[in-house]
Protein backbone atom coordinates (compact mmCIF):
# COMPACT_ATOMS: atom_id res chain seq x y z
CA UNK A 1 0.00 0.00 0.00
CA UNK A 2 1.39 3.36 -1.02
CA UNK A 3 0.36 6.33 1.08
CA UNK A 4 1.51 9.91 0.64
CA UNK A 5 4.28 10.69 3.02
CA UNK A 6 3.50 13.30 5.65
CA UNK A 7 7.02 14.41 6.51
CA UNK A 8 7.79 18.09 5.97
CA UNK A 9 11.25 17.31 4.72
CA UNK A 10 9.95 15.02 2.02
CA UNK A 11 7.36 17.55 0.89
CA UNK A 12 9.79 20.45 0.76
CA UNK A 13 12.43 18.47 -1.04
CA UNK A 14 9.92 17.20 -3.56
CA UNK A 15 8.82 20.77 -4.24
CA UNK A 16 12.38 21.96 -4.64
CA UNK A 17 13.61 19.10 -6.73
CA UNK A 18 10.77 18.86 -9.23
CA UNK A 19 11.67 21.99 -11.23
CA UNK A 20 15.38 21.25 -10.98
CA UNK A 21 14.91 17.79 -12.44
CA UNK A 22 12.77 19.21 -15.21
CA UNK A 23 15.37 21.81 -16.04
CA UNK A 24 18.05 19.15 -16.13
CA UNK A 25 15.87 16.95 -18.35
CA UNK A 26 15.43 19.80 -20.78
CA UNK A 27 19.17 20.34 -20.82
CA UNK A 28 19.79 16.64 -21.49
CA UNK A 29 17.29 16.68 -24.33
CA UNK A 30 18.61 19.77 -26.06
CA UNK A 31 22.24 18.92 -25.55
CA UNK A 32 21.81 15.38 -26.84
CA UNK A 33 23.63 16.41 -30.00
CA UNK A 34 26.80 17.51 -28.26
CA UNK A 35 27.00 15.55 -25.07
CA UNK A 36 25.81 12.24 -23.68
CA UNK A 37 22.06 12.14 -23.40
CA UNK A 38 19.05 12.34 -25.63
CA UNK A 39 15.44 11.37 -25.77
CA UNK A 40 15.43 8.31 -23.55
CA UNK A 41 17.41 9.82 -20.74
CA UNK A 42 15.48 13.08 -20.87
CA UNK A 43 12.18 11.22 -20.98
CA UNK A 44 13.07 9.16 -17.92
CA UNK A 45 14.12 12.30 -16.07
CA UNK A 46 10.86 14.01 -16.95
CA UNK A 47 9.03 10.93 -15.73
CA UNK A 48 10.97 11.16 -12.48
CA UNK A 49 9.97 14.79 -12.07
CA UNK A 50 6.30 13.80 -12.36
CA UNK A 51 6.61 10.73 -10.20
CA UNK A 52 8.34 12.53 -7.34
CA UNK A 53 5.34 14.73 -6.42
CA UNK A 54 3.00 11.81 -7.08
CA UNK A 55 4.86 9.68 -4.57
CA UNK A 56 5.31 12.51 -2.09
CA UNK A 57 1.81 14.03 -2.16
CA UNK A 58 -0.38 11.27 -3.57
CA UNK A 59 -2.51 11.46 -6.67
CA UNK A 60 -4.69 14.55 -6.54
CA UNK A 61 -5.59 17.63 -8.48
CA UNK A 62 -3.98 18.05 -11.84
CA UNK A 63 -2.02 14.84 -11.42
CA UNK A 64 -5.22 12.82 -11.31
CA UNK A 65 -6.20 14.25 -14.67
CA UNK A 66 -2.93 12.93 -16.02
CA UNK A 67 -3.79 9.43 -14.97
CA UNK A 68 -5.87 8.31 -17.90
CA UNK A 69 -4.44 10.71 -20.43
CA UNK A 70 -0.85 9.60 -19.95
CA UNK A 71 -1.03 6.79 -22.46
CA UNK A 72 -2.62 9.11 -25.03
CA UNK A 73 0.28 11.48 -24.55
CA UNK A 74 2.58 8.55 -25.20
CA UNK A 75 0.74 7.94 -28.47
CA UNK A 76 1.11 11.61 -29.37
CA UNK A 77 4.87 11.47 -28.86
CA UNK A 78 5.26 8.43 -31.04
CA UNK A 79 3.00 10.01 -33.66
CA UNK A 80 5.33 13.02 -33.69
CA UNK A 81 8.28 10.72 -34.32
CA UNK A 82 6.55 8.65 -36.95
CA UNK A 83 4.97 11.73 -38.51
CA UNK A 84 8.41 13.24 -39.08
CA UNK A 85 9.27 9.91 -40.65
CA UNK A 86 6.14 9.67 -42.75
CA UNK A 87 6.41 13.11 -44.33
CA UNK A 88 9.44 12.28 -46.52
CA UNK A 89 7.82 8.95 -47.46
CA UNK A 90 4.72 10.71 -48.74
CA UNK A 91 6.92 13.14 -50.64
CA UNK A 92 8.56 10.30 -52.51
CA UNK A 93 11.61 9.76 -50.32
CA UNK A 94 12.30 7.12 -47.72
CA UNK A 95 10.69 6.71 -44.32
CA UNK A 96 12.59 8.75 -41.72
CA UNK A 97 14.77 10.46 -44.32
CA UNK A 98 15.05 13.81 -42.54
CA UNK A 99 17.14 15.16 -45.41
CA UNK A 100 13.97 15.36 -47.49
CA UNK A 101 11.81 17.20 -44.99
CA UNK A 102 10.00 20.02 -46.76
CA UNK A 103 11.68 22.95 -45.03
CA UNK A 104 13.09 25.39 -47.56
CA UNK A 105 16.44 27.08 -47.28
CA UNK A 106 18.31 24.41 -45.38
CA UNK A 107 21.00 22.06 -46.51
CA UNK A 108 20.69 18.33 -45.90
CA UNK A 109 22.99 18.15 -42.91
CA UNK A 110 21.15 20.93 -41.10
CA UNK A 111 17.82 19.31 -41.89
CA UNK A 112 19.08 16.08 -40.41
CA UNK A 113 20.25 17.96 -37.34
CA UNK A 114 16.79 19.41 -36.74
CA UNK A 115 15.13 16.13 -37.67
CA UNK A 116 17.11 14.40 -34.96
CA UNK A 117 15.99 17.00 -32.44
CA UNK A 118 12.38 16.53 -33.55
CA UNK A 119 12.38 12.80 -33.09
CA UNK A 120 14.21 13.13 -29.78
CA UNK A 121 11.39 15.35 -28.55
CA UNK A 122 8.92 12.69 -29.67
CA UNK A 123 10.89 10.02 -27.82
CA UNK A 124 11.02 12.20 -24.71
CA UNK A 125 7.27 12.68 -24.66
CA UNK A 126 6.59 8.99 -25.20
CA UNK A 127 9.07 7.75 -22.62
CA UNK A 128 7.96 10.23 -19.97
CA UNK A 129 4.25 9.66 -20.52
CA UNK A 130 4.52 5.90 -20.78
CA UNK A 131 6.69 5.59 -17.68
CA UNK A 132 4.12 7.59 -15.71
CA UNK A 133 1.33 5.51 -17.22
CA UNK A 134 3.04 2.24 -16.29
CA UNK A 135 3.51 3.55 -12.76
CA UNK A 136 -0.19 4.39 -12.53
CA UNK A 137 -1.13 0.98 -13.91
CA UNK A 138 1.11 -0.78 -11.43
CA UNK A 139 -0.33 0.93 -8.38
CA UNK A 140 -3.92 0.84 -9.58
CA UNK A 141 -6.34 -1.06 -7.39
CA UNK A 142 -3.54 -1.79 -4.97
CA UNK A 143 -4.85 1.12 -2.95
CA UNK A 144 -8.25 -0.42 -2.47
CA UNK A 145 -6.79 -3.53 -0.90
Amino acid at each position, binding site marked *: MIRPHDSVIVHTLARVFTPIIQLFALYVLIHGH*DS*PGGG*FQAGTLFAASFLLPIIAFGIQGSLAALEKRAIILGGVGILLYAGIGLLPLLLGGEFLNYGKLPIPGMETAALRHWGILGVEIGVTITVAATAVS*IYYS*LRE*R*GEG*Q
Partner: protein
Amino acid sequence: MADILFSRPHFIAFIILFLLGMYIMVVCLNLVKKLIGMYIMQTSIILFFITLAVKADSTIPIIMPSVSALTPEAYANPLPHVLMLTAIVVGVSTLGVSLAMVLALYRQYNTLEEDQILGKVK
Protein backbone atom coordinates in the same frame (compact mmCIF):
# COMPACT_ATOMS: atom_id res chain seq x y z
CA MET B 1 42.81 -21.66 -23.68
CA ALA B 2 43.12 -20.71 -20.03
CA ASP B 3 45.52 -17.82 -20.60
CA ILE B 4 43.29 -16.42 -23.33
CA LEU B 5 40.42 -16.41 -20.87
CA PHE B 6 42.34 -14.75 -18.07
CA SER B 7 43.23 -11.94 -20.40
CA ARG B 8 39.49 -11.34 -20.77
CA PRO B 9 38.06 -10.57 -17.36
CA HIS B 10 35.00 -8.93 -18.93
CA PHE B 11 34.11 -12.07 -20.73
CA ILE B 12 34.36 -14.22 -17.63
CA ALA B 13 32.17 -11.76 -15.74
CA PHE B 14 29.71 -11.87 -18.63
CA ILE B 15 29.52 -15.66 -18.51
CA ILE B 16 29.04 -15.70 -14.75
CA LEU B 17 26.27 -13.09 -14.89
CA PHE B 18 24.53 -14.66 -17.86
CA LEU B 19 24.44 -18.14 -16.39
CA LEU B 20 23.51 -16.84 -12.95
CA GLY B 21 20.61 -14.84 -14.36
CA MET B 22 19.35 -17.72 -16.43
CA TYR B 23 19.70 -20.17 -13.54
CA ILE B 24 17.62 -17.94 -11.27
CA MET B 25 15.01 -17.44 -13.98
CA VAL B 26 14.55 -21.15 -14.46
CA VAL B 27 14.99 -22.50 -10.94
CA CYS B 28 13.63 -19.92 -8.49
CA LEU B 29 9.97 -20.25 -7.65
CA ASN B 30 9.48 -16.68 -6.44
CA LEU B 31 8.18 -14.59 -9.32
CA VAL B 32 10.00 -11.38 -8.36
CA LYS B 33 13.23 -13.33 -7.90
CA LYS B 34 12.81 -14.65 -11.42
CA LEU B 35 12.60 -11.09 -12.66
CA ILE B 36 15.75 -10.14 -10.76
CA GLY B 37 17.43 -12.99 -12.62
CA MET B 38 15.99 -11.73 -15.89
CA TYR B 39 17.40 -8.27 -15.25
CA ILE B 40 20.85 -9.69 -14.53
CA MET B 41 20.78 -11.81 -17.68
CA GLN B 42 19.78 -8.89 -19.88
CA THR B 43 22.45 -6.61 -18.47
CA SER B 44 25.10 -9.28 -18.93
CA ILE B 45 24.43 -9.20 -22.67
CA ILE B 46 24.99 -5.45 -22.59
CA LEU B 47 28.35 -6.12 -20.99
CA PHE B 48 29.21 -8.44 -23.88
CA PHE B 49 28.33 -5.87 -26.51
CA ILE B 50 30.08 -2.98 -24.79
CA THR B 51 33.34 -4.89 -24.58
CA LEU B 52 33.11 -5.36 -28.35
CA ALA B 53 33.10 -1.59 -28.72
CA VAL B 54 36.25 -0.93 -26.70
CA LYS B 55 39.35 0.24 -28.48
CA ALA B 56 42.62 0.57 -26.61
CA ASP B 57 43.66 4.18 -25.96
CA SER B 58 40.44 5.62 -27.35
CA THR B 59 38.08 8.25 -26.07
CA ILE B 60 34.31 8.63 -26.00
CA PRO B 61 32.60 8.86 -29.39
CA ILE B 62 31.88 12.58 -29.34
CA ILE B 63 33.70 14.46 -32.06
CA MET B 64 34.37 18.11 -31.47
CA PRO B 65 34.09 20.23 -34.61
CA SER B 66 37.58 21.58 -33.93
CA VAL B 67 39.15 18.23 -34.76
CA SER B 68 40.81 18.49 -38.15
CA ALA B 69 42.35 15.10 -38.97
CA LEU B 70 39.89 12.51 -37.78
CA THR B 71 41.11 9.02 -36.99
CA PRO B 72 38.40 6.47 -36.22
CA GLU B 73 40.89 4.53 -34.09
CA ALA B 74 40.86 7.31 -31.53
CA TYR B 75 37.17 6.89 -30.67
CA ALA B 76 35.21 4.02 -29.22
CA ASN B 77 32.93 2.15 -31.61
CA PRO B 78 29.50 3.84 -31.36
CA LEU B 79 27.40 1.11 -32.99
CA PRO B 80 27.27 -1.36 -30.06
CA HIS B 81 26.46 1.58 -27.79
CA VAL B 82 23.42 2.37 -29.89
CA LEU B 83 22.33 -1.25 -29.97
CA MET B 84 22.62 -1.48 -26.21
CA LEU B 85 20.65 1.69 -25.61
CA THR B 86 17.87 -0.12 -27.44
CA ALA B 87 18.45 -3.26 -25.41
CA ILE B 88 18.26 -1.39 -22.10
CA VAL B 89 14.96 0.18 -23.05
CA VAL B 90 13.61 -3.16 -24.28
CA GLY B 91 14.70 -4.65 -20.96
CA VAL B 92 12.86 -2.09 -18.85
CA SER B 93 9.72 -2.48 -20.99
CA THR B 94 9.78 -6.24 -20.53
CA LEU B 95 10.29 -5.67 -16.83
CA GLY B 96 7.29 -3.35 -16.66
CA VAL B 97 5.02 -5.85 -18.39
CA SER B 98 6.24 -8.76 -16.28
CA LEU B 99 5.75 -6.82 -13.04
CA ALA B 100 2.24 -6.00 -14.19
CA MET B 101 1.64 -9.73 -14.62
CA VAL B 102 3.10 -10.43 -11.19
CA LEU B 103 0.78 -7.86 -9.63
CA ALA B 104 -2.22 -9.25 -11.45
CA LEU B 105 -1.31 -12.73 -10.28
CA TYR B 106 -0.85 -11.51 -6.71
CA ARG B 107 -4.28 -9.93 -6.73
CA GLN B 108 -5.85 -13.22 -7.69
CA TYR B 109 -3.83 -15.69 -5.68
CA ASN B 110 -2.33 -13.52 -2.93
CA THR B 111 1.10 -15.07 -3.24
CA LEU B 112 4.29 -14.63 -5.19
CA GLU B 113 5.38 -18.25 -5.14
CA GLU B 114 4.84 -20.15 -8.36
CA ASP B 115 4.17 -23.51 -6.68
CA GLN B 116 1.53 -22.00 -4.39
CA ILE B 117 -0.19 -20.35 -7.34
CA LEU B 118 -0.19 -23.68 -9.16
CA GLY B 119 -1.65 -25.31 -6.08
CA LYS B 120 -4.45 -22.74 -5.92
CA VAL B 121 -5.25 -23.05 -9.60
CA LYS B 122 -6.09 -26.73 -9.42
